[in-house]
Structures are given as structure tokens and as C-alpha cells.
């Protein structure tokens, strides 16, 4: 390559195109892998083109820019986070299906190269954690938490935009890596020395590094934003112990983000220094010590799993209470259990490497600490069961996910206790047993939580219910598909099959592998059902309209406003006297009332900061990956200038006139009055327009 081109393109060459190696090497294996990689790249390119054409054809660029991309509204930002999560979920599931297909036929070979398989489990894991799970829960908290505490926005709306921009940039980087390959093969954990320059000189590890770094920065900022909001922006009267449980888990998650993300920043930052500036932090020579990386990574990694699971705990708490028509059992105990889990989560990281050389005493201590977490978690499970006990349970779609969760999650917890025993862990660590265990926590726990939250709060966000028939189909496909895909892995793990294996030579594995493959197909069907559900719901949106705002006979504040809510959420900030504030209002016959007077409302003004930082972040990460230094420096300077210029701005808010607030609110109240209240038995019919028969008039309670 000439000097001029390498100055511009760094080390990016034609060979980064996914079909390049296929042109030189005509072996069947190379062609199959090349075709798969090219197909994936083609889907990315086509997807982007289709999106551009669609928006242009609809003439919606301006709308997209001013109503979404530059909007500081926590509700819109939340929805955009969830859109990212769903796109990335689809990609990661497709990758999982490819891995399952490979292993189903993987006796003595299969159709994927080891390199390609390595990229698949690395992108699958990285995406599922950083670009599916994190944006999904960030999106849900973003949307719901301010509504639950009676706030009009987060404390730092522009910082919220920046968080979104950074996550979007990281997700975009992993998508770009499909077109300009390769991605890392180092797993989602990226352990050195394998990921050091001397073993892995290509761009793959750098893609991984910067994608993860962008996500980490985003989550740190998000954590600060959520915690400050919950501490400072609660409505008058909402003491900490009157907060809804979901908000409690959001608070604990935010605190975990604040303290749990920095270790990852340090780990990836030091690895980057090793790779770019020839440091020797984790190398095998000159005094490097890779155990430092492992400790740092898991000092993040274990809190991370509780970042992932606490929000679902909160979501299920709301759902069990709502669909059992009861107040949650043991509110205070649940809060305390949440806090215990959050604190204990910092004391157990070593269980991820029992086998890496520390003494038996240390292993024992961490094993016991790990098992201790089972106690608060068990307390929660009993509280949920006692909430259902003697309730009038409605088996709505969120409830199906919730019950699936409670049964499968307990099972996964049991296998966790098994793994927490160091002597057992020596036998099964790094095997498919572990893969089965953590998917058993992440799919029924995190993913079911997110999907049931989506079914639960979707009507709040968009003003119509999600269609239930396809919702049930999706839920059952998820539950059955999960069991088929992952229970065999427990067996395989006990039979000794290591994780991350592209092929194997043991014929006994085959039947289990085929079962798991079928399970993956059922999961694919579940994804399809979700898409159809969305489509059908949008089609029938008028029939399923719930503008009045309370389709489930909800208990917390967010159900007491219109669906979708006005951008300022509450025309007047409510005063809170108890937990389940809205249910209390309804009990007293005080729901849906007009306030004495309306005031002007000051809301944050639109800002392009999120978009700017997202784009410059992506440009810097891309430049660093391919050694295009001009791009790195240029984008860095633009970021600096943008941040400084923002500091000079003074009109950061705009005012909504009291009369407009009044008009909107009175229109909604009028509609509520015209809405026929329905009994809970009609909840899933088209007569549900978002107004329940008040409990006080003898409805189910």
C-alpha cells in the first residue's frame, strides 16, 4: 500500500471485505463461510439503505430529527434505546442459531471455520450483554422510572441523549464490523494474552475494545443520571419507602452502574494501552500480569449480572402485584433484599475463576459469599409467590412470562449454587454446563423481564395494547424454546463438552446437540411471533386504543396519566401519600381529577449534542480500529469544541404555556369520562379502552 493511501485509510484494505478471502481460496469451506459473511454484510447494507429510502419516501427526515433524534424527552430516548436493543437482539439470535446449527452437525467438522465460529460467539455474547441487555433495561428505566416518581424528566436530559448516542455508536461499530471484517475472536470477556497484539494483530480485537468502551461510558453516565434523578426529583411526599419497587431496583442498578462500570473501563483501557502504545500490563513477557485483567474484568462482570437482573426483579414485582390484584407482599423485605443483593454483588467476583490458581481458602470464602446471594434472592421468590397467593390471578401475557421466569429462574439459581462450590466448579468450569447456567439466568431472568415489561408498558407508551394472541404464542415459544435449547447443554457439560468448541469428536453428543438446535429454531419462531405481534397490534391500534391510560387497573403513578403521556408527563406534580399511589387515589375515588390551577411548565429544549457525540464517538472508535489517525484527532477535536460550545449556550429550556397544558389535560379528562369502565374479565378485549371499574365499586380486588 502506498504511503498516501495508508495515511488516509490506515490499515484498512480490500481484504477487509467479507468475500475477499473467498476469491483467493476456493475450498468449499472458504466459500461457505465467505457466502455467510457476505450475506450478513449484505443484510446490514440493505437494512441501512432500506431505512434511508423509507424515511425519504415518507418525507419524515425533519420529523425524525426534531421529534426524535434531538429530543431530550426521556420517553423518546427510552424508546430509541429499546429500538436499538431489538435490532441487536435479532442479530444476536440469528448468530446463536448459526452456532447451534454448526454444533448440531459439528461431529468431526461442521460447516463453519474455527475463526468464523469464534467471531460468532464473541459478537453474540458482546452484543447480547452490551447492546441488547443494557440498552433494553436502560430504555425501560428511562421510560418508566420518571413516570413512577412523578418527575417530568431525568436530572440531566442532555447527558441522557449523550448516553444514547454512545450506545448507538457502539452498536453501529459492531454492525460495521460485519461489512469491514473481522471482529474479535476473543469471546465477550476478551482475555489477554490472547487479545494482545502479539497474538492478535488484526483489527478484530480493536473493534471489540472500542465497542465495549463506548457502551461502558454510556452506562456510567446513565447510572449517574438515574441515581441523581431518583434522589432529587421525586414528587413531594414520595419518600424512599413509598417508591414503587421497580424504581427501587432502578436505583440499585444505577448505583451498581456507577461503581461497577469503572473496572471495565480500566481493564479495556489498559488493554488498549498494551495494544496501541506497547505497554506491558497483561503481556506474557516483561513483567506483565494477565491476572490483573481477569480480576478487573470480573470486578465489573459480577456487578454487571446484577445490573442485568435487578430491573427484571422490579418489573416482575410490579407485574405480580398488578395481575394478582393485590398489593405486593413484603414490600420492605423486597427492598432490603434488593439492597443486600446489590452490596453482595461486589464481593463474589472471584467465582468466575476458581480454577486460576488462588488458594483453596480464598476459593472457599468466595464460594460461600456467592451462595449467600441465594438468600435474598430466595426471599424475593417467596414474596412473589405470596403476592400471588389468594390473589385473583389474571394470566395476561406479562404474567405468563413472569410465571415462566419464576420457575426457570429458580432452576438456574440452583445450578448457580452448584457452580459456586469450588470443587464442583473444577469439574464443570468452562464447559457447556456454565453456558446453560448463565443462559438460564439471562433468558428467563433478563430477557423475559424485558419482554414482559414491553407487553406491560407498551400501551402506556403508544396508546394501544399489544395483541395478545401472538403475545401468548411468543411467550410460549420462548419458554419451550429456551428449555429445548439449554437443558441439553447441562447434560453436555456434565459429559465434558467444553464451551466455545467449533467441533467435537464424541458421537454421544449428537442427539443432545440436535435437540438444542431444534430449541434454537423454536426461539427463532418466538422472535418471529414478536414481530408479528407488533405488526398485528399496529394494524389494530384503533380497536385496542387505551387513551384513558389505565388498561391493567394499575397501581403506580404512571397509570394515572394519559396514554401516551404528554411530554411533560404530569400537568401538575402529584402529591404522594402512600405506596401504590394511583391505586390509593382510585380507592378514594379521587382518580382523574382536574387540579385547581395550572402553571407554565419549563421543559428542556431540543439539542443536537447526543447526535454529535454519537457520530464523533463512532468516528473515533472506527479510526482507532483501523489506524486512521486523522479521523481520531479530527473527531476528538470536534467533540471538545462541541462540549465547550454547549457550555456557552444559555437557552436550554423552553416553556409550555399553562393554557396549553390546561387544554390538553381537560381534553383527556373529557375522554376518560366518555370511556366506559370495564371489569377485569374484559381486559383483553376491544372494550378495554384504559379505564377500569374502580375497585371501590366491587371490581376484583
Amino acid at each position, binding site marked *: 500500500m502506498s504511503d498516501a493511501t495508508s495515511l488516509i485509510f490506515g490499515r484498512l484494505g480490500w481484504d477487509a471485505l467479507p468475500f475477499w478471502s473467498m476469491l483467493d481460496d476456493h475450498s468449499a469451506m472458504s466459500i461457505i463461510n465467505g457466502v455467510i459473511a457476505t450475506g450478513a454484510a449484505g443484510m446490514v447494507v440493505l437494512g441501512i439503505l432500506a431505512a434511508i429510502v423509507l424515511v425519504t419516501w415518507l418525507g419524515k427526515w425533519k420529523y425524525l430529527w426534531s421529534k426524535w433524534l434531538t429530543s431530550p424527552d426521556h420517553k423518546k430516548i427510552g424508546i430509541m434505546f429499546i429500538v436499538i436493543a431489538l435490532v441487536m437482539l435479532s442479530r444476536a439470535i440469528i448468530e446463536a442459531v448459526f452456532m447451534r446449527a454448526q454444533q448440531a452437525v459439528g461431529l468431526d467438522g461442521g460447516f463453519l471455520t474455527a475463526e468464523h465460529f469464534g467471531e460468532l460467539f464473541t459478537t453474540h455474547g458482546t452484543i447480547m450483554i452490551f447492546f441488547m441487555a443494557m440498552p433494553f433495561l436502560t430504555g425501560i428505566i428511562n421510560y418508566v422510572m420518571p413516570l413512577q416518581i412523578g418527575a417530568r424528566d431525568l436530572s440531566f436530559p442532555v447527558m441522557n441523549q449523550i448516553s444514547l448516542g454512545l450506545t448507538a455508536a457502539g452498536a453501529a461499530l459492531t454492525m460495521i464490523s460485519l461489512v469491514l471484517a473481522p471482529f474479535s475472536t476473543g469471546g465477550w470477556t476478551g482475555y489477554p494474552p490472547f487479545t494482545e497484539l502479539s497474538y492478535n494483530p488484526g483489527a478484530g480485537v480493536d473493534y471489540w475494545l472500542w465497542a465495549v468502551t463506548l457502551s461502558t461510558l454510556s452506562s*456510567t453516565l446513565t447510572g449517574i443520571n438515574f441515581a441523581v434523578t431518583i434522589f432529587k426529583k421525586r414528587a413531594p411526599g414520595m419518600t424512599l419507602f413509598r417508591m414503587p419497587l421497580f424504581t427501587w431496583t432502578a436505583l440499585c442498578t444505577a448505583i451498581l452502574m456507577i461503581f461497577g462500570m469503572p473496572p471495565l473501563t480500566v481493564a479495556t483501557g489498559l488493554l488498549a494501552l498494551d495494544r496501541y502504545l506497547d505497554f506491558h500490563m497483561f503481556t506474557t513477557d516483561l513483567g506483565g500480569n494477565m491476572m490483573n485483567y481477569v480480576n478487573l474484568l470480573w470486578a465489573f462482570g459480577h456487578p454487571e449480572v446484577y445490573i442485568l437482573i435487578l430491573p427484571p426483579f422490579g418489573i416482575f414485582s410490579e407485574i405480580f402485584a398488578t395481575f394478582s390484584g393485590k398489593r405486593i407482599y413484603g414490600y420492605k423485605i423486597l427492598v432490603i433484599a434488593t439492597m443486600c443483593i446489590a452490596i453482595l454483588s461486589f464481593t463474589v467476583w472471584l467465582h468466575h475463576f476458581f480454577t486460576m490458581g488462588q488458594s483453596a481458602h480464598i476459593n472457599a470464602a468466595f464460594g460461600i459469599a456467592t451462595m449467600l446471594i441465594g438468600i435474598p434472592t430466595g426471599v424475593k421468590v417467596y414474596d412473589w409467590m405470596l403476592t400471588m397467593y389468594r390473589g385473583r390471578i389474571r394470566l395476561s401475557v406479562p404474567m405468563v412470562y413472569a410465571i415462566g421466569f419464576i420457575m426457570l429462574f429458580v432452576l438456574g439459581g440452583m445450578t448457580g449454587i452448584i457452580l459456586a462450590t469450588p470443587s464442583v466448579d473444577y469439574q464443570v468450569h468452562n464447559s457447556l454446563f456454565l453456558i446453560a447456567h448463565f443462559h438460564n439466568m439471562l433468558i428467563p431472568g433478563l430477557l423475559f423481564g424485558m419482554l414482559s415489561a414491553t407487553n406491560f408498558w407498551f400501551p402506556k407508551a403508544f396508546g394501544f395494547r399489544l395483541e395478545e394472541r401472538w403475545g401468548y404464542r411468543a411467550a410460549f415459544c420462548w419458554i419451550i424454546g429456551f428449555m429445548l435449547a439449554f437443558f441439553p447443554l447441562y447434560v453436555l457439560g456434565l459429559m465434558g463438552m467444553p464451551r466455545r468448541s467449533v467441533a467435537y469428536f464424541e458421537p454421544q453428543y449428537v442427539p443432545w446437540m440436535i435437540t438444542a438446535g431444534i430449541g434454537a429454531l423454536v426461539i427463532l419462531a418466538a422472535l418471529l411471533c414478536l414481530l408479528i405481534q407488533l405488526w398485528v397490534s399496529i394494524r389494530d391500534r384503533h380497536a385496542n386504543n387505551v387513551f384513558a391510560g389505565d388498561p391493567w387497573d394499575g397501581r403506580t403513578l404512571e397509570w394515572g396519566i394519559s396514554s401516551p403521556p404528554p411530554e411533560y408527563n404530569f400537568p401538575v406534580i402529584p402529591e404522594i401519600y402512600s405506596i401504590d399511589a394511583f391505586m390509593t387515589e382510585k380507592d378514594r375515588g379521587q382518580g382523574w381529577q382536574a387540579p385547581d390551577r395550572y402553571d407554565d411548565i419549563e421543559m428542556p429544549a431540543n439539542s443536537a449534542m447526543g447526535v454529535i457525540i454519537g457520530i464523533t464517538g463512532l468516528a473515533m472508535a472506527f479510526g482507532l480500529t483501523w489506524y486512521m489517525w486523522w479521523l481520531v484527532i479530527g473527531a476528538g477535536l470536534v467533540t471538545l469544541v462541541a462540549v465547550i460550545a454547549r*457550555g456557552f449556550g444559555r437557552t436550554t429550556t423552553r416553556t409550555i404555556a399553562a393554557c396549553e397544558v390546561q387544554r390538553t389535560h381537560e381534553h383527556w379528562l373529557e375522554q376518560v369520562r366518555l370511556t366506559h369502565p370495564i371489569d377485569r374479565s374484559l381486559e383483553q378485549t376491544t372494550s378495554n379502552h384504559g379505564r377500569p371499574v374502580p375497585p371501590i365499586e366491587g371490581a376484583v380486588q
Partner: protein
Amino acid sequence: MSSGNTRALEGNSRHPGLNLGPAHAQEEDTREEMVFGFWVFMMSDLILFGLLFATYVTMLGGTAGGPGPKELFELKSAFIQTMILLVSSVTFGMASLALKYREDKARLVVWLLVTLALGLAFLFFELKDFHSMFDKGGVPSRSGYLSAFFSLVPLHGLHVTGACIWLVALLGQMAVHGLDAPVKTGILRLAILWHFLDIVWIGIFSLVYLGGLS
């Protein structure tokens, strides 16, 4: 209309650092949020430094036959840097007092400029130190120990650089908008960062320099 704060009491004495002129409930609340948010950010940053300190300690033995602290560090220069930073904390304190108790912009600007000069002087001496370390063969690629040193100490330097840029930006804002509320909270938050960096430096001086030379 209450601004959403549970304990929204009247008066401006809730937060000793925040009574920046005539009280205005809503405005005070958002200002308080900004300062509180910055404290939270500092906590996160502190974890960053804490972990780098811990990593540094584990790497002390990793000199791989290369130069160690005794060959590389000069106590005199490190001491000068420490003194400069400590004095800069005092001068920033004077700036904060000028901000809080006097409507005297000139005095404030002078103290801020003195602080800025001290910050730049610190950076100058630090870079000079690194230069002389490099001359003695103390480059990060030489050993794990030196890598750990150069991942910890320059990160502090980078923070100081960032703080200096922020200070200049605030002076610029003051020139354009006068001493308005955003500038005032900006100075408050920068003060937190400045003192924080001072504390981190004391950690570096004791652990890295004094510990290394003892």
C-alpha cells in the same frame, strides 16, 4: 408549583456551597442537582483511580530487570509538583470565597488565573519529569512496572489538563455572559474536581514517589 423536590423547603441555607445570590427555589433545585451529580461522577472517577492504584501495587515487582523507582524518580521535582498543586488548591479556595462572599468579579478572575498558572506549572514539571525518565530508559514498553506507572500518573495529568481547559472555558463564559448562575455552578463543580485531583495527587506522591524511594 413545587419543583419536585421532596424536601423543598424555602430559604437558601440548605447547601453551604450553593447560596449564590438571591434565592430562587426552582433554580436552586436544579443547581443542587448539578452539583450533586458531579459528586456522584467524582465517586465513579475515584473508583477508576483506586483500581489503578491497586494495579500499580501489584505490578511493583514487574520491573523485568529494567529501571525501578530508585533509578528513575527525583524527590525534589515530585515535591515541587506537590507544593504547586497544594498551593493551587488554596488559590482555588480563595476564588471560591471571592465567588461566595463578594460580588467582586475582578478578584475572582485573578484568583482563577493564578490557579490556572499553577496548574500549567504543575503540568510543565510533570512533563519534564517524564522526559528525564525517558532519558534514563524509563519508557512504558520497558516493563510491566513502568507500564503501570504510566497508566496511573499521566491519567492524573490528563485530568489536570482537562480541568485547565474547563477553567479557560469558564473564563470565556464569564467574559460573554458575566457571572451568571451557570458560570457559578461551573466554578463550583470545577472546584470539586480541582480539590479531588489534589487528593489523588497526594495518593500518588505518597504511594508512588515516597513509597518508591523509601
